């Protein structure tokens, strides 16, 4: 009988350590920080480059946080404005994206905290003109489209029901592909706290979305 590969052996480190090492190896050098240093020195073109690199990621992250495209864009403008305003004090002590997502998360969490009571019955992912509805895929039949939209509503509802910090952690992990350490930096908590947040969030999502699988 084969031994269980999950059991650590003398020649092999424990699984927990191997998973952590695997995560650490994925970190990449930070070219954004160099651009930001040039922005600090007065090079406005580098700010435009940073905006082009990260604009969509920040807006999409905020959209999935606040579930409202107009608010997400407004908050994203504030994020980049703060980056610009703080340029003279910038020190590359952390990855640029960590700093960027820390600002975005801070603004997103504040908006959720301050605006939650105003949401009422209204579905937040709808603009008044309906333009924010998920882009229609012409390859789907009307029936398929209806099923798809219903499924998305449930996904959004499941996300909306997560506590805001869990939601932020899932968005960064799933869509921005940040590692545990970087999410911990963004949320200013320990790596183990991030893992705990993520695993509880995924557990909730598995339970809420099980019927759609």
């Amino acid at each position: 009988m084969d031994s269980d590969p999950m059991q650590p052996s003398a020649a092999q480190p424990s699984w927990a350590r191997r998973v952590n090492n695997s995560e650490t190896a994925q970190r990449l050098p930070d070219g954004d920080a160099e651009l930001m240093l040039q922005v600090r020195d007065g090079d406005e073109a580098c700010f435009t480059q940073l905006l082009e690199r990260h604009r969509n990621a920040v807006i999409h992250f905020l959209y999935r946080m606040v579930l409202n495209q107009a608010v997400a864009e407004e908050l994203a403008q504030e994020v980049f404005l703060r980056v610009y305003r703080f340029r003279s004090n910038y020190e590359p002590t952390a990855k640029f994206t960590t700093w960027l997502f820390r600002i975005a998360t801070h603004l997103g969490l504040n908006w959720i905290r301050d605006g939650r009571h105003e949401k009422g019955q209204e579905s937040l992912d709808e603009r008044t003109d309906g333009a924010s509805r998920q882009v229609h895929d012409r390859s789907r039949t009307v029936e398929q489209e209806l099923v798809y939209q219903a499924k998305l509503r449930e996904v959004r509802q499941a996300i909306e029901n997560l506590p805001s910090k869990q939601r932020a952690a899932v968005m960064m992990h799933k869509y921005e592909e940040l590692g545990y350490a970087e999410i911990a930096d963004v949320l200013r908590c320990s790596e183990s706290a991030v893992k705990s947040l993520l695993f509880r969030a995924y557990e909730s999502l598995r339970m809420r979305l099980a019927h759609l699988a």
Partner: protein
Amino acid sequence: MGCSLKKSVAEELIVAYAARTLSADLEADFERHLETCAGCRELVAQQRAVWSLLDEWHPLPVSPDFDHQLARRVARAGQSPWWHRRFGRWGWRPLIPVAAACTVLLFAFLLKEDDHAVAPGPGSQPQVRIEQQVEHALDDMDMLKQIGVDVSSAKPGPARKI
């Protein structure tokens, strides 16, 4: 048969396996574990389902004038007065404790001033002494008149003890 993994390690492996972020050798080992662990197999299936549902949630297109709006705001930020550029980012909220502290200090100062007005301070004591001395002098003169001494013609001499 129960899972041989600690719950936290299993959770981490399941999430990473569904996200396909495990290294090749780790993934192969975990797949061998899955062959013998029905519980982890079930959780992996559920996690993959969640993962693909989340994949279907596509972001919306960004407004075409996003960059222009931002450029306008950046230009405005560059034109704002120096004090706003320096302190404006903190907003008005930090001013609340400062204002509260100033109010408390002002009240304390005013109360102290009132105390000075009610109780005579050290500066007003000489005035009170002079008035008392004048009263004593007048009393002395009355007493001398009563015993027949002509006060107006009396020559100044050394002070007498009464």
